[in-house]
């Protein structure tokens, strides 16, 4: 796809603020013109009034210059403000769209794509695109108009002198492009070194105790020193390239100045130019070379922005959705769950579930057990419609769940996961997940039922205590209890427990089991477990092996069968007998 096509996609975001952008361009032109007028008016002042000793006229023209300065000042401030406001608003809109788009993507997308990459899309890439407007397009437009007006004015004042003075310009432009490119490459390398340095530090500091105990300090130090040395050398090279560039432009600008003085002087002596011309030319040459000094910076910002734009575009093109039906069914849900000849694979030709038939009727507790990797969690994923089966159906109350809106059917379910995810916020926020319909009484009742109320009340601010990111300041078991309370306040008809007690030690286990019992009362529960003690009293136990249901039955029946379940159950204690 061509760059223009990428740009096209983002045009609607920009046209929303077209008035703001139009005004910033107008003010940009106003400020450029008034800045260009100053040397021209200075010339008039010298030639028309100072040379003719006309003080009155000099005062008049000074007032004009004063007005130009004032206009320049005000228009510049307005232009900067408006350009940035437009840019920031566009970015805010874009971020909103990106975040909403991200939330709608299927769960599969998140297990495939590294989270760092997704985060970069919503944050840094948008930031880069902002540069496209403020530092890229508008700045380049500004530079171009300065160049155009400067050249225009000098040719207007004295075409012959202008033609001579402008001679070093092509060389300067060439240098700006060539050296600029080299410089940009070097700075890119410098940034790479910084990234490497940060990764190194992050690693070392996270594993510092191991490094000390295993005696790997020297090696770590050497690795870091090598990177730091590369940084030092490359950075020096990059800095020197930028200095060469700057000095090259400086010498060429001096050359132009000298050309103005000598040729302008010669012309003045001959009477075809004036001192005022020389003064004006000196001012214009300075402005001519100004934009060249950071031309390459601006180009690299533009390139950066365009590459971010492409990434954003393909992120927005991501179509991995679980779609809703056109005519969704809405009805009261009791909570009967059925899997009907379900086949599913994450990766083609490598089936995860093969012909699964499973039933959990209203108010019943079923369990799914099996080795790690047997496909147990996948079943929960299908019931929640995080994925759709390759063939077969998942039914709730006898209706294929694809006939409901996903959010509708999910609103009757709750899930508790092995690794409880704690959101940034208070304990209360983590129980309600921001649902304002849930009252404080409901929260407390749920917490009491689960047996976590006393723990919460012991926290510094009770339910209003901020939990550190990722739940660092509370234990695994306490997190788990909070997630039970979360599931309870949502009053689900169907409860999915995915290895909810796996990471809990024996001590906490009893409290948790009590909480679990309360949680499951009166609802359809589907318990995925490898800790078999929690599921002994299930109404039906399904044993999954290599994607298939190997056997099913109650605890007693399965033990009698002396097959896989029996093996699983006694394995832990084989040492004893």
């Amino acid at each position, binding site marked *: 796809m061509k760059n223009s096509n990428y740009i096209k996609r983002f045009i609607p975001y920009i046209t929303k603020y077209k008035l703001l952008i139009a005004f910033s361009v107008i003010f940009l032109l106003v400020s450029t013109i008034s800045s260009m007028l100053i040397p021209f008016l*200075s010339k008039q002042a*010298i030639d028309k009034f*100072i040379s003719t000793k006309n003080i009155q006229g*000099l*005062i008049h023209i*000074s007032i004009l*210059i004063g007005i130009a*300065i004032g206009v320049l000042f005000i228009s*510049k401030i307005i232009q*900067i403000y408006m350009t940035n*406001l437009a840019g920031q608003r566009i*970015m805010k809109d874009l*971020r*909103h769209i990106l*975040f*909403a788009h*991200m*939330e709608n993507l299927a*769960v599969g997308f998140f297990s495939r794509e590294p*989270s760092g990459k997704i985060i970069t899309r919503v*944050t840094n890439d948008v930031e880069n695109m902002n540069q496209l407007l403020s530092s890229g397009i508008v700045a380049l437009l500004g530079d171009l108009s300065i160049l155009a007006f400067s050249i225009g004015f000098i040719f207007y004042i004295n075409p012959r002198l202008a033609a001579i003075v402008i001679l070093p310009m092509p060389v300067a432009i060439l240098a700006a492009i060539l050296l600029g490119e080299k410089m940009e490459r070097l700075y890119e390398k410098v940034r790479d070194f910084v990234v490497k340095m940060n990764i190194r*530090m*992050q690693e*070392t500091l996270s594993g510092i*105790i*191991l490094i000390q*105990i295993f*005696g*790997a300090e020297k090696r770590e*130090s050497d690795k*870091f020193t090598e990177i*730091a*040395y590369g940084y*030092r050398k490359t950075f020096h090279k990059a800095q020197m390239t930028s200095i060469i560039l700057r000095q090259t432009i400086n010498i060429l600008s001096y050359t132009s100045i*000298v050309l103005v*003085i*000598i040729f302008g*002087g010669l012309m003045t*002596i001959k009477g075809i130019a004036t*001192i005022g011309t*020389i*003064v004006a030319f000196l001012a214009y040459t300075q402005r001519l070379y100004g934009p060249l000094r950071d031309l390459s910076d601006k180009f690299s910002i533009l390139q950066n922005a365009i590459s971010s734009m492409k990434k954003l575009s393909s992120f927005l093109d991501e179509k991995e959705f679980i779609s809703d039906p056109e005519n969704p069914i809405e009805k009261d849900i009791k909570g009967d769950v059925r899997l009907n000849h379900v086949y599913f694979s994450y990766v083609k030709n490598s089936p995860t579930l093969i012909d699964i038939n499973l039933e959990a009727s209203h108010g019943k507790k079923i369990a799914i057990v099996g080795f*790690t990797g047997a496909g147990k969690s996948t079943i929960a994923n299908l019931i929640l419609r995080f994925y759709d089966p390759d063939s077969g159906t998942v039914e709730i109350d006898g209706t294929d769940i694809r006939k409901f809106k996903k*959010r509708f059917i999910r609103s009757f379910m*709750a*899930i508790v996961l092995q690794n409880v995810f704690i959101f940034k916020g208070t304990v209360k926020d983590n129980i309600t*997940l*921001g*649902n304002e319909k849930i009252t404080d009484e409901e929260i407390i009742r749920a917490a009491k039922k689960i047996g976590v109320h006393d723990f919460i009340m012991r926290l510094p601010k009770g339910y209003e205590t901020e939990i550190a*990111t990722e739940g660092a300041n509370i*234990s695994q078991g306490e997190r788990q209890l909070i997630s039970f309370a979360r599931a309870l306040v*949502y009053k689900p008809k169907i409860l999915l427990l995915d290895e909810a007690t796996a990471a809990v*030690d024996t*001590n906490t286990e009893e409290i948790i089991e009590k909480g679990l019992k309360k949680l499951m009362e009166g609802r359809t529960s589907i318990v995925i477990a*490898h800790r078999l003690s929690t599921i002994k009293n299930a109404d039906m136990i399904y044993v999954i092996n290599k994607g298939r249901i190997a056997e099913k039955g109650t605890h007693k029946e399965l033990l009698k069968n002396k097959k896989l379940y029996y093996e699983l159950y006694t*394995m*832990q204690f*084989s*040492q*004893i007998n």
Partner: protein
Amino acid sequence: MKTIFSFFKREIKWYIPIMLMLTLVDFSQVIIPVFTKKAVDAITKKNTALLVKYGIYIIVIASGIIAIRYAYNYILRKLVLKLDFELKTSLFNKYLEMHKGYFEKQEIGDLMARVTNDTRAVRMFLIMGFLGGMDIALLGITTFIMMFIMSPMLSIYVAIPLILLIPLALNFGHKIHKYFKNVQTIFGEMTVRVREAISGIRVIKAFTRENFYLKLFDNVNRQYLQENMKLVRLDGFLDPTIDFLINASIIILILKGGILVIQNRISLGTLVAFSQYIGTLAWPMMAIGFTISLMQRARASLGRINAVLESEPEIADNNLTNYNIKSLKGNITINNLHFKYPAGDVEVLKGINLFVNPGELLGITGPTGSGKTTLLELILRIYNPQEKSIFIDGHEVLKIPLKVLRRNIGYTPQEPFLFTDTILANIKLGRENATIEEAEEAAEIAAIKKTIESLPDKYNTIVGEKGITLSGGERQRIAIARAIITKRPIMLFDDPLSAVDTDTENTIIKRLRNYLRKNNITAIITSQRISALTIMDQVAVLSSGKIIEQGKPDELFDKGGYYYHLYRKQMLEGIET
């Protein structure tokens, strides 16, 4: 400050050449307008020869300036980057010496920022501050003197607006930095919001809370716009205001200077020279402000850098260290050990007594929070135990050289940390010169060999944060292999099997026991798993920091205490019904 001063002392030979070059450049820069004045006056006198002569002077001086600028920039930047490099590596090496408690008090991000951001502040001050300072002293003052010689009255008039640049640059620099930090903080919060939406996506979707988290994101998104616009409102004033003040100076020049020319009190050449001086005078004025604000930032950063460089590692050899101890055999004696974490006031260990013979295997069990991990960490001196409480081979651990202590103990921490590197490098962490066969042997004992060999790159597969994702159990097994390969006489395993499934657990325990026996290694293993505890020579039960039971596994079983109940419980789960 020591680091910086010693650096300056070492590089003292470079000061004089740099200063000389800067002086030369600054004076030359002041001379150029003098020749411009002479050239313009030559024009008014219609003297072509003089005009060309002064033109050539200007270009020659300009070339000289450029060459010297290149030279001093080369040296100065090389020196500063060398210092920067030394600061970075000294900081990093300091971190490598610090104890665990230090990293608990400090955020890793903050420690990293000292290596990257704070050194940058110092670097910027040393380059910009130094050049700025020299320019202020030389360029600013000499320019003003030259102007004053040409026309005292005009130079005072023209300087008035320029003097306002000093407080402007000073205040703006400071505030902009502050606002910029606010913007970065909000940006960080925004990243947190995106990250948590990604990590918690299953919960968000299952509880249909997409809109709420979008709303939370939008709040930060809006705040980000507001903070950015606050910065723009300030930052956007800076450039126009600088332009305005310089232009104000020019208008004064034209009006006042023009009148003086009309009155024949100065020449037209002086007027032109002044117009050039305004450009050269503006920079040192701004530099005063910038330099001061850079200096303030650099001082704060240097303070943060020095805080690290001057802090002494709390756990290190001292005058008690007995350097005659070269190796350890493996007798561990613990004598009435009490311990409180430096930050806490609760006693975690309350009078522990233990005795382990060389080659003996000790199992420690007990509920979460009973002090098992702490005990192992004290043996390793990850924290310092109280005096005369822990002895290895009869030497108090506090007197054993830290290197000797740590090079003789192998360790797997509770949380198995893998570095972003190959599996092989991770296994060989403690013995770089180990052969691939030894790594395979260790992997075999840890029952991870097959898994590794099934990976596409086998032992060269990159793992860790940036590499492929391994399960908790797989990581634990690599951590076990990492300890085993060191063949150290003492090994401490902290709950090494918690995430390993039951059948693999049995395999590992058997192999590990054979390996430890064969090599006569003293080992302490903490575990909740009865299968691991039954094969130990002795078992200690820790509860709330005290040993409540201790003895051979059989003896403990007969006692009918915690161990018996743990055993019964885990066994009953297997045999019941």
